[in-house]
């Protein structure tokens, strides 16, 4: 045994072959994952389409055109028109802006609240931990959709104007999303605290703030990155469900979910599938891509399970 430890010591004193940084390795591994790369490119395309696409559209978002109502897809209206004569493709792109923005903003809010509360909880333990974690337990034991339905109903009661509603939807989604994240971060912090480098910060006498923000939270970034990606997918799904039910983003603001409201009209549903299939497909493809990308990231960051 002595032999080995001496050899190891000797090795360490020599220069050690430098391996590329974690991020570079992750990037290289991700690049090899075809499904994740296709997803990444599709998402980029979706963003460009939603945010830049409308500038190339000859149609104005809310302008109604009585002469061209309920037209099936054609050369001038690629995805047809709705029952006000509005161009579906243009609305789809504008709705994409709203749905993607809500998904991402809700994710950032959840991450902010979740990682902050989780870090405080895991770092200070004691009564703070107890209160935060019980609160998280309570929120997590109310199933997500019923909780969102209740809050959606509250929004309707408060008669929130349509243009402010989307901000409240973001807050609602993060309200449902933070407890899981807080738990995750807390668990990570607890195990990190046991590691020698944290004992070193103790010896060095660093302030709590420095310990939390410089040493603990950065170490949870890889796992947070994966969860954040998957969280965007979840938020987009929840938002679309709420909007489909008329409790989320409401017209005239378009969102993929409320565009699908067309399917609630039986004639539209049977005879005019171009009204509801494009937004549904957009949600599906976006969510699938985000999920595949998130999974690819997980594999790239944690290669233990791969070869």
């Amino acid at each position, binding site marked *: 045994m002595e032999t080995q430890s001496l050899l190891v010591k000797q090795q360490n004193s020599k220069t050690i072959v430098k391996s590329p940084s974690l991020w570079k390795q992750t990037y290289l591994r991700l690049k090899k994952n075809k499904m994740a790369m296709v997803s990444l490119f599709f998402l980029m395309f979706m963003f460009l389409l939603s945010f830049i696409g409308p500038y190339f559209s000859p149609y104005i978002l809310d302008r109604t055109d009585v002469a061209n109502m309920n037209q099936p897809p054609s050369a001038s209206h690629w995805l047809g028109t709705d029952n006000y004569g509005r161009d579906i493709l243009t609305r789809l792109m504008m709705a994409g802006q709203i749905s993607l923005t809500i998904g991402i903003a809700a994710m950032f809010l959840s991450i902010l609240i979740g990682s902050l509360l989780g870090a405080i909880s895991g770092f200070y333990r004691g009564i703070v931990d107890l209160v935060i974690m019980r609160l998280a337990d309570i929120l997590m034991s*109310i199933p997500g959709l019923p909780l969102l339905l209740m809050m959606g109903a509250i929004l309707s009661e408060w008669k929130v104007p349509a243009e402010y509603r989307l901000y409240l939807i973001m807050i609602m989604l993060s309200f449902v999303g933070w407890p899981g994240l807080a738990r995750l971060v807390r668990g990570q912090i607890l195990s990190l605290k046991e590691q020698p480098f944290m004992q070193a910060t103790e010896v060095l006498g660093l302030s709590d703030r420095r310990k939390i923000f410089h040493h603990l939270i950065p170490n949870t970034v890889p796992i947070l990155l994966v969860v954040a990606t998957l969280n965007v997918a979840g938020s987009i*799904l929840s938002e*679309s469900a709420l909007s*489909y039910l008329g409790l989320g983003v409401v017209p005239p603001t378009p969102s993929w979910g409320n565009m699908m409201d067309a399917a609630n009209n039986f004639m539209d549903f*049977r005879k005019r*599938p171009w009204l509801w*299939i494009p937004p*549904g497909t957009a949600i599906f493809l976006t969510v699938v891509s985000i*999920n595949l990308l998130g999974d690819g990231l997980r594999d790239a960051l944690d290669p233990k399970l791969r070869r």
Partner: protein
Amino acid sequence: MKQYVLQRFLQMIVILFGTSFIIFFLFAILPGDFIDSNISLTPQRAQELKSLYGLDQPILHRYLNWLGNALHGDFGYSLKHQEKVLSLLNKYVWNSFFVAIFALILTWSIALLTGVLSAIKQYSWFDGAVTFLVFAAMSFPSFFISLLFIKWFGVDLQILPIGGMIETGSENTGVSYLLEVGKHMILPVTILTLLSVGSLTRYFRTGMLEVIRLDYIRTARAKGLKERVVIFKHALKNAILPAITLLAFELPGLFSGAIIMEQIFNWPGVGRIQLESVSFRDYPVLMAFTMFLSCLTIIGNFLADVTYAAVDPRIRLR
């Protein structure tokens, strides 16, 4: 073990109280209720009704009142259906339950089989196809897939009914009644299964992948056991045990996942009642249903933790 159960039990009670309070509180801050939205009432009559339903008292008082009643099984009166909430839910919950239980059995059997197979054949074409389908299933919005299925199987192919539990005006009884309901159930069960099978398959695949790399699997092989025994006895038991804790979330998860599906399929279950009460501001029903799902989750969670502790020898004796 005894201490663990007791501790978990107390924790469960605390969470039950907290959850009921949050749910009550959310409804209490609603500015409108059934009475406010009924514009045919005179202000005086409205006031009378409010004090009749106890709506004019402070929140905490109303909460304790509601909780006391709820503990006696009195969740109030459905303002829309003019019926006790408990009997209303009892009437519809079974329709949801049967769909959920079929979906549950299907989901777990499919997930277990495909998860294990794709883990032991990691990176094969089968594994690739399963992974792809899993992600597709996880990413479908429930309303979109419901609508698509109705369009394909109900409208275009016309091989399955587009909604409801029985044909309108049907007076079938006995076996033919069951067959009719069964036919109406195919799409709802398929959709619920599709929506939940993805993540569970993934869970089993990951669990299996972790386990088959462990030392004791190598030991089992070194003992000269058949590969079948190594995988389905030694690996599977380890991979499956932690899944017990997931079982707790399944039933309430299926109930809440069914809300939108039931609405679209016009299935007479609690989910549809729930959505109906959102639009009619029938808050006692909404509250009772949300409370019901939360209780299922909390109690299920408690039972799952205790069961898991009881069957896993590593925890059992601590």
